[in-house]
């Protein structure tokens, strides 16, 4: 099959670029969080903003030290693999990450497991019946579904399947998603609703292009069966642009599912991040930034690799 020879220098460049990007994200987040009005002491004081108490909290948290000093301390810890401790609870940031990562990864995995076959299937189906009724129906449906925000779909599905029909749990309140996977079905469907539209449309467009390309015509002339042409020759080429979109979806699933997590009460990374920002809990926000940055870099690297492997000549990689 495809040759995976002189990729190493390219991978090395990509990795370095990724490290730089992660560092930039962290610095950027630090600056942004510093620029937010108020700090952890103010957020913690809440509706009892006694100035003396705020000053004491600030001192106890070390927030009275200059920002640069706090950043250096944190980076120093980071280089030794220490993500620091939460300002609010005093628990290690890694604990926050592992607690939030489980549910989020589970949800993301469930979504992806459904997303890939579903969007490939839909895209190929629509492309093979280009211009037909099926194609038009799929196009109309995906366009319509894509226009509805997650929040609305979530409320609708929870009300319909959770409350009216009673088939599925309407929220994941107090449930452990690992032992009660039923609580993940509705959130996964909500998460699926939009990426499935974009990716299936990309696959459809790529398929139509590929099916019209000379190499497919050549394969047909050699008498290769229709199914084999579709799945083994046209699809890999059509899939290359879709992988980039898939990578973006992965990032989004890990960090952008806040609405869905809040709606269904899944204590995942999005929820942890939102709460940490509201509490101005800087070490937790920074720790998450590192993880999100690293994941984004890794996923995009994987996508570029995949795209190169599926369509080596299209030179999609950056």
């Amino acid at each position, binding site marked *: 099959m495809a040759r995976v020879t002189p990729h190493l220098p390219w991978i090395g460049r990509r990795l370095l670029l990724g490290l730089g990007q992660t560092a930039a994200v962290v610095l950027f987040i630090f600056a942004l969080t510093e620029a937010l009005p108020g700090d952890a002491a*103010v957020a913690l004081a809440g*509706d009892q903003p006694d100035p003396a108490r705020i000053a004491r909290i600030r001192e106890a948290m070390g927030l009275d030290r200059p920002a640069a000093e706090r950043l250096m301390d944190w980076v120093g810890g980071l280089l030794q693999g220490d993500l620091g401790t939460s300002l609010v609870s005093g628990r290690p940031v890694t604990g926050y990450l592992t607690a939030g990562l489980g549910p989020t990864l589970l949800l993301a995995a469930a979504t992806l497991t459904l997303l890939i076959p579903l969007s490939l299937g839909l895209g190929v189906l629509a492309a093979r019946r280009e211009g037909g009724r099926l194609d038009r129906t799929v196009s109309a449906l995906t366009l319509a579904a894509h226009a509805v925000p997650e929040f609305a779909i979530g409320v609708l599905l929870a009300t319909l399947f959770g*409350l009216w029909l009673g088939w599925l749990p309407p929220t994941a309140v107090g449930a452990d998603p690992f032992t009660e996977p039923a609580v993940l079905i509705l959130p996964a469907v909500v998460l699926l609703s939009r990426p499935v539209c974009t990716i299936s449309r990309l696959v459809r467009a790529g398929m139509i292009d590929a099916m019209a390309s000379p190499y497919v015509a050549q394969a047909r002339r050699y008498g290769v069966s229709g199914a084999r042409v579709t799945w083994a020759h046209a699809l890999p080429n059509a899939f290359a642009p879709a992988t980039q979109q898939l990578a973006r979806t992965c990032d989004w699933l890990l960090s952008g599912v806040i609405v869905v997590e809040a709606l269904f009460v899944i204590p995942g990374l999005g929820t942890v991040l939102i709460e940490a920002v509201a509490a101005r809990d800087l070490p937790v926000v920074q720790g998450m930034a590192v993880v999100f940055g690293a994941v984004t870099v890794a996923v995009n690297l994987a996508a570029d690799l995949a795209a190169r492997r599926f369509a080596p000549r299209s030179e999609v990689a950056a």
Partner: protein
Amino acid sequence: MNDARSSLARRSFLIATGATALAFTAACGTGTTTPDAKNAAAGTPKQGGRLRAAFAGGGASETLDPHAANLFVDAARAKALFDKLADFGADLAAVPRLAEKWEPNEALDTWRITLRKAAFHDGKPVTAEDILYSYRRIADPKGTFRAKASLEPIDLDASRAIDASTVEFKLKRPYAEFPNILAAFGAYIVPKDASAFDKPIGSGPFSFVSFKPGSSLVVKRNDAYWEGAPHLDELEFVVASEESARVSALLGGQVEYAHELDPATARTHEGKGKIDIVRLPGSAMQGFVMKTDRPPFNDPRVRQAFFLIADRKELVDGALSGAGEVGNDLFGKGYEYYPAGLPQRTQDLDKARALLKEAGAEGLKVTLDTAPAATGFVEAAGIFKEQAAKAGITVEVKVGNKDTYWKDILSSGTFASYRSGAMPIESHISQRLLTGSTTNATKWQQKDFDDLYQQAQSTRDATQRGALYERMQRRLYDEGGFLIWGFADWIIATAPKVHGVSKQAPANTLDWARFDKIWLA
């Protein structure tokens, strides 16, 4: 332990689903039974079962340290696991709890507390040493616990344990309302030398089973509780910060108790038989603060004009969806020492205009600071803006950051949205209305008012003290900086099988979130 938890979770899911089915048939059968009558009916409490209660939470940073309590969910959890020396009754008067009784000396600056017989979950008795340790921990000069300000009047160095069950508190000054300190938010009693609260040991009605920050706390019945064991076998606190999620979880049978509902949601489900709505009156004061030390509000006539601009009924109906009652510019409607005899203030635009003219403040422009920091804030600001326009005043509504709102309005700005949970009128005065008060948002700093307060605290006789409180409140009613337009109900919803939920207790008082008195039918 993990296995036990997950199998429990599965079981309760099944039980809950079955119960919902039952609830449907029950609702069909009885038809006319109102939720209120059903809950008030003095049925015999049933033993057993597990109740899941959903609260808005503090996320992954939550701790079980009862002294670090800041949120309602913290208070509810701390109440299940720990005790205070006293707590507040429905009228916000202190009720003895771990303290069996309290006696002041003649000068009201030394108080002797006698403890009742109670034990921590590990079997050790609650002693005077535990009390002193807990209070010293809260009041630690380097610490930042919320109740520290409340404990300030106590001279803890001079206070001592007379014997195992008697504590003598020396105060820095006479303080007739000393029991309010014992009931203060966060003044929980922990065992001597306790400093880690991963597996907290308290003397409360429930003992610790397991905790996942930001997600769930499971506690079980403490059979040796001094006030009698709770009815429930187990209680689980779950956290759902979205109101819609709490309601869905309740409707879907995933929880049996949901704390803090929007008035609009409550109205949708009230009387439908699927869930019971409980409204706790007098829980949340709603109003505006006018800074009395700066223009335009340093002129009492402007403040009086603003009092007369507010159409309170319209504010309650609009900003609280009608879930509450109108205020009379005084804190603590219905509480002990509230002057119920003062005439209800109503909108009087003519008089307001006349007052503004007299003060030379016609065509006044004011910025109203608000933020989505509490239910109805932004809505109320919009409504008041319209009302003020009728009196020729331009109110510019400025929506700020909700995370830092309380600090932002404490000393900046001139006019701002405000709310407060339940506390005794005395605490409201001492925390917000004295020259040295730490959260004096109206900048009400009046020497004679301070003197009246101190005089009240040196007065033994409750009737005389009441008269002094009335004088102080009359003064605030006439020319204070708090424009208090309403008192919001605190709304709780339960599954129909939940019984024994108090309907009178304002949020944060003794009978609120009192799961040891709740049972499942």
